[in-house]
C-alpha cells in the first residue's frame, strides 16, 4: 500500500518530501519509527494489548466448548451405546440434502445411544477438507465413517488408510470410483432416478418433436452423469446404461449447461439456453434448486406454461413446486434412509464385527402431479408425506 494511499495520520512523516538527502540524522526514524528511539514496551500498553488478545481467545474457546456440548448433548442417553462413535462427512454444510442427512444420522445415533461426529467440506469438490476430516475422526476413535465423497477418486487414499486401521467406511449417495474402495454403498440408483423422469417426459410428450435443455451438475461428477444418461435412456433418445462414465447427448438436446446444483446458476443456465434456442420445450434438471432457477428464467421469458421441467431429489421445497405446477415430475430419493441405515451398519459392526458390504439401493419414487399413462408414479400427497427438508 503506497504511503499516499494511506490516511494522513498513518503516513510516515517523510512522505511527500521527496529526495531527502541520505545520511541525514533523522533517517532512523523514517525507516523504523520504533527502533532506538524510546522504549516501546511500557507495561501498561503491553498489558492492554495482551488483554485485547486474551478476551476474544477466551470467548472463542468458550464457544468451542458450547459448540461441542451442543452436539454431544444428544447422545449417550442409550443403554449400551457407551463408547461407540460414528463419523459422518458430507460434501458441504449448507446443501439441504446433507443437512437432512445429518439430522437423520443424529436422530438414529440418539436412538441407538451412540455418539455422532460430523464434518464437511467448504464447497462441493473440496477434497482436502474431507481428507483432513477422515484423518481426525480416525484419531478420535470412530468405529465407522459415513461419507458423501466430493471427489470420488481423490478421496480413495484417505479411505484406504482408514480401512487399514479397521474403520468401516460406507459411501452415502455418491459412489466412489472404483466402488469397491469402500466397504459398502447406500445410495439412490441415480440412473433409475433419471430413467423415471425420462419415461414420464416421453409419456407426456408422446411423438411431439422436442427440443431439450439439460441443466447438469458439473463435469466429471458421477451423480450428474448417471441422472443425465438415465434421463436420455428413459426418454429413448440414447442407448446407454449405468456403466457409462461420460455424459452422452442426442440430436434433440439443443443445450447443455452446468449449474453445480445451484438455483442462481440454474437460472443463468436456463437464460443462456433460451438465448441459444428459444424453442426449448423440455428441461431436464439435475436437482430441484436448479429446476426452480430454470422456472424463474422461463417465467421471466413468459414461457413457463409451454415448457416441461423434470427434476430429481424429492425435497419438500421441490415437491411443493410439483404441487404448484412449476415442476412436472421429480424422482424422490431418501437421504434420511441412507443416513439411518449407515448409522445402523456402523453400530452393528462395532457390536458384532459384521461388515456390511456391496450396494444397497435406498429407493427412488417418481412423484408427479398428473400421472402419465404407462408410467408408475405417486401423487403429490405421497411426495409431501415422504419428502425431506
Amino acid at each position: 500500500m503506497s504511503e499516499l494511499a494511506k490516511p494522513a495520520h498513518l503516513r510516515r512523516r517523510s512522505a511527500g518530501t521527496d529526495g531527502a538527502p541520505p545520511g541525514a540524522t533523522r533517517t532512523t526514524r523514517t525507516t523504523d519509527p520504533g527502533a532506538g528511539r524510546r522504549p516501546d514496551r511500557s507495561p501498561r500498553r503491553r498489558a492492554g494489548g495482551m488483554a485485547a488478545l486474551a478476551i476474544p481467545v477466551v470467548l472463542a474457546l468458550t464457544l468451542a466448548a458450547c459448540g461441542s456440548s451442543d452436539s454431544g448433548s444428544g447422545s449417550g442417553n442409550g443403554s449400551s451405546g457407551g463408547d461407540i462413535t460414528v463419523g459422518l462427512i458430507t460434501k458441504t454444510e449448507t446443501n439441504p440434502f446433507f443437512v437432512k442427512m445429518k439430522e437423520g444420522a443424529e436422530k438414529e445415533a440418539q436412538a441407538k445411544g451412540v455418539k455422532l461426529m460430523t464434518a464437511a467440506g467448504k464447497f462441493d469438490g473440496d477434497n482436502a477438507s474431507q481428507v483432513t476430516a477422515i484423518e481426525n475422526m480416525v484419531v478420535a476413535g470412530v468405529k465407522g465413517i459415513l461419507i458423501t465423497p466430493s471427489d470420488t477418486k481423490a478421496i480413495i487414499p484417505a479411505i484406504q488408510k482408514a480401512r487399514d486401521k479397521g474403520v468401516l467406511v460406507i459411501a452415502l449417495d455418491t459412489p466412489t470410483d472404483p466402488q469397491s474402495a469402500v466397504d459398502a454403498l447406500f445410495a439412490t440408483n441415480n440412473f433409475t432416478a433419471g430413467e423415471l423422469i425420462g419415461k414420464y417426459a416421453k409419456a407426456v410428450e408422446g411423438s411431439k418433436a422436442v427440443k431439450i435443455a439439460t441443466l447438469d451438475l458439473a463435469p466429471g461428477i458421477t451423480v450428474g452423469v448417471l441422472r443425465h444418461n438415465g434421463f436420455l435412456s428413459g426418454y429413448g433418445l440414447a442407448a446407454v446404461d449405468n456403466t457409462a462414465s461420460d455424459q452422452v447427448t442426442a440430436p434433440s438436446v439443443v443445450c447443455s449447461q452446468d449449474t453445480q446444483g445451484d438455483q442462481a446458476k440454474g437460472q443463468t443456465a436456463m437464460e443462456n439456453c433460451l438465448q441459444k434456442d428459444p424453442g426449448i420445450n423440455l428441461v431436464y434438471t439435475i436437482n430441484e434448486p436448479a429446476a426452480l432457477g430454470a422456472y424463474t428464467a422461463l417465467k421471466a421469458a413468459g414461457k413457463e406454461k409451454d415448457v416441461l421441467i423434470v427434476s430429481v431429489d424429492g425435497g419438500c421445497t421441490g415437491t411443493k413446486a410439483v404441487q404448484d405446477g412449476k415442476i412436472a415430475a421429480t424422482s424422490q430419493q431418501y437421504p434420511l434412509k441412507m443416513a439411518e441405515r449407515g448409522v445402523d451398519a456402523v453400530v452393528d459392526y462395532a457390536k458384532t464385527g459384521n461388515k456390511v458390504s456391496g450396494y444397497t439401493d435406498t429407493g427412488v419414487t417418481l412423484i408427479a402431479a398428473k400421472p402419465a399413462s404407462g408410467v408408475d408414479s405417486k401423487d403429490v400427497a405421497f411426495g409431501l408425506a415422504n419428502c425431506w427438508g
Partner: protein
Amino acid sequence: MMEPSVVGAEAEPRTGAGPLLRQALGLSTLGPLAALVLAGLFFSIQSDRFLTGGNLSLIVQQVMVVGTLAIGQTLVILTAGIDLSNGAVMALGNIVMTRLAVASGLNVYLAIALGLLTCAGFGVLNGGLVTGLRLPPFIVTLGTLSIAFALTHIYSNEQTVTGLPSQLTYLGKTFALGQTDITYGSVLMVALFGLTWYVLSQTAAGRHLYAVGNHPEAARLTGIRTRRVLLGTYTVAGLIYGLAALLLVSRTGVGDPNAGQTDNLDSITAVVLGGTSLFGGRGSVIGTLLGALIVGVIRNGLQLIGTKSIYQTLITGILVIVAVSVDQLARRRQR
C-alpha cells in the same frame, strides 16, 4: 555515527544464541505463541487423544500445504503487497506435475521441475505486472487467480489424476521418531520455514525486503534496487507455491484440479495470525508458522471433541480480528 538501522531489527548485537532466539521470537510472535499454547492446553484437557505423538504429527501434516503457501504469502505481504493467486497457482502446479508424469509419460523429475517452473513463472508474471506496470498487487493477483484457475481446469479437463509414480508421493512417506510417524513433507516444510527465516533476518537480501516493504522510497534512496527486490520476491514466492503443490500431491496421492480454492485466504489468515503487518515491513515468518499451527490445532482439536465444523470457521474469523487489532495496537504504540 548514526547508522540507518533497517526496519525490523531490534537494536542489539546479532551474534550468539540468546539474541538469535529473541530475534526469532520477536515481540510480534509472542502473541501467536501464547495463543497456540493456550489452544493446545485447552484441547489437551478436553481430549486425551490430543497430545499424542500421532495426533501432533497429523496436525503438522494437515498444516503442511497451507503453511508452505503462507511462507510465500509472508514474503509478499512483507513488501506491503498481497497474493490472492497462490492457491490457484499451486493447483495449476499440481496438475502440471501429475499430468506430465502420468498422461504425457515424462520423466518424473522433469515433470516436477516443469511444475515448479510453471508456478515460478506465475510469480514472475505477478511481479512483472506489479513492478513494470505499477499495478496494485491486489488487482494483479486477483486477475492471475482466475487465469491460473481456468488454466488448471482446461489442462486437467476436470479429471483427477491418479496412478502417480512413487517418486511424486515420496514426501508423503513416513519415518519413525520413537513411537511417532513423521512424514518427510513435514520435515521439508519446517526446513523451508527455517531457511526463509534465516534469509529474511540474517542476510542482506532479507533486510532489503523489509526495507522495501516498510518504505519503498527511502529504500530506493539508500541504493536498494526496489523493483528488483519486488520481482525477486514474487518469483521466489511462486517457486514456494510450486513446492506447496508437490507437498499437496504427496499428501493426497492424486493430482486434484479442485485443490486450493480457499487456500489463498487460509494462507493470509496464517500470516495475519502470526503477527505480520499487512502494511508491510513488519513481521516474522516464524509467526506465520505459529499462525498456521494455531489454525491446524483448532481444527483438529475441535474435531476431536466433536464440535460442528462450522464453529472452526467462526473461531478462525474471531482470531483474525484479534490478530489485526493487536498489530494495530503495536503500530500505534510505536509512534
